[in-house]
């Protein structure tokens, strides 16, 4: 499917969904619906998203949210889609998509490591890049560390 067909398909499937334009399309979902929605996107033959491409988090302290983005790709149909999920910055917890795409395992560990997002039902949620005894989540905008020397120039 191309972009407009994919958008139409999503809006037919979920009439209340908000789909943002762009390449790839962003399907905004909420934390309750993401698991069901992801499962449908994987299982339906028309979409058939079988490949987890990437996962990253955007920290937005002004709106007090983290935005989680999951990039999906279909090997068969060669189309891609992005799932967007906004979660509160204070509680920072989201359902893990490892059960559906095991490939997200290390991506979610990385995002836990750097942003402190608590993925529910993740099989092995521990730090992946930083040392195990590290305190804090260094890519949060409000991260403070004496090692972060200010630039003198």
């Amino acid at each position: 499917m191309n972009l407009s067909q994919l958008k139409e398909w999503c809006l037919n499937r979920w009439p209340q969904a908000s789909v943002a334009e762009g390449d790839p399309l962003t399907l905004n979902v909420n934390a309750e619906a993401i698991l069901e929605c992801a499962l449908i996107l994987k299982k339906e033959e028309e979409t058939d998203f079988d490949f987890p491409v990437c996962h990253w988090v955007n920290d937005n302290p002004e709106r007090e949210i983290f935005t989680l983005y999951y990039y999906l790709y279909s090997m068969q149909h060669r189309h891609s889609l992005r799932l967007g999920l906004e979660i509160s910055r204070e509680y920072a917890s989201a359902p893990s998509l490892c059960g559906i795409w095991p490939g997200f395992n290390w991506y979610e560990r990385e995002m836990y490591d750097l942003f402190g997002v608590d993925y529910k039902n993740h099989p092995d949620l521990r730090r992946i890049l930083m040392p195990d005894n590290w305190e804090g989540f260094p890519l949060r905008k409000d991260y403070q560390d004496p090692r972060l020397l200010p630039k003198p120039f």
Partner: protein
Amino acid sequence: MAVINNACKVIQVMPAGPFLLLQTEQVLNWARANSLWPLTFGLACCAIEFMSVGASKYDFSRFGFEVARASPRHADLMVVAGTVTEKMAPLARKLYLQMPDPKYVIAMGGCAISGGPFCYGTYSVVRGVDQIIPVDVYVPGCPPRPEALLHGMIKLQEKIMRSHPLLGEPRKIEEL
């Protein structure tokens, strides 16, 4: 080593003893300086230059560095080639402690000298490998040219030739 140190103290007070020790030191230094086998230890892009120095075009074997060993037990020289992160620091130190004496360290490139481009605004980089292990020669550059590393290695050989393993104080392993 204690036996050798005691023997040196006895020989030193004998007639022509210091001369004999100096000559022995020369032989010892010559042997050490010309068979400095480096440890295969690359942390970032400087390791590419280090490999280049080991390969046929620059070829550090010509100067006695022979071959990079994969085990710290076989190595005399640690070329810290790259960025030392907080996570790597304990391992780098452990590798250094596993090397048998006499052992030498070259800090290669800006990152290993001072943190380099990661000195400011970074939370995960150690600002200079000399904070965790003693360094003999610093080779600046980002990364240094192979000639620069080779120059640093030859400088280390000159430094070893000037050292006094028998007459001077024994080299201390600092407990940092």
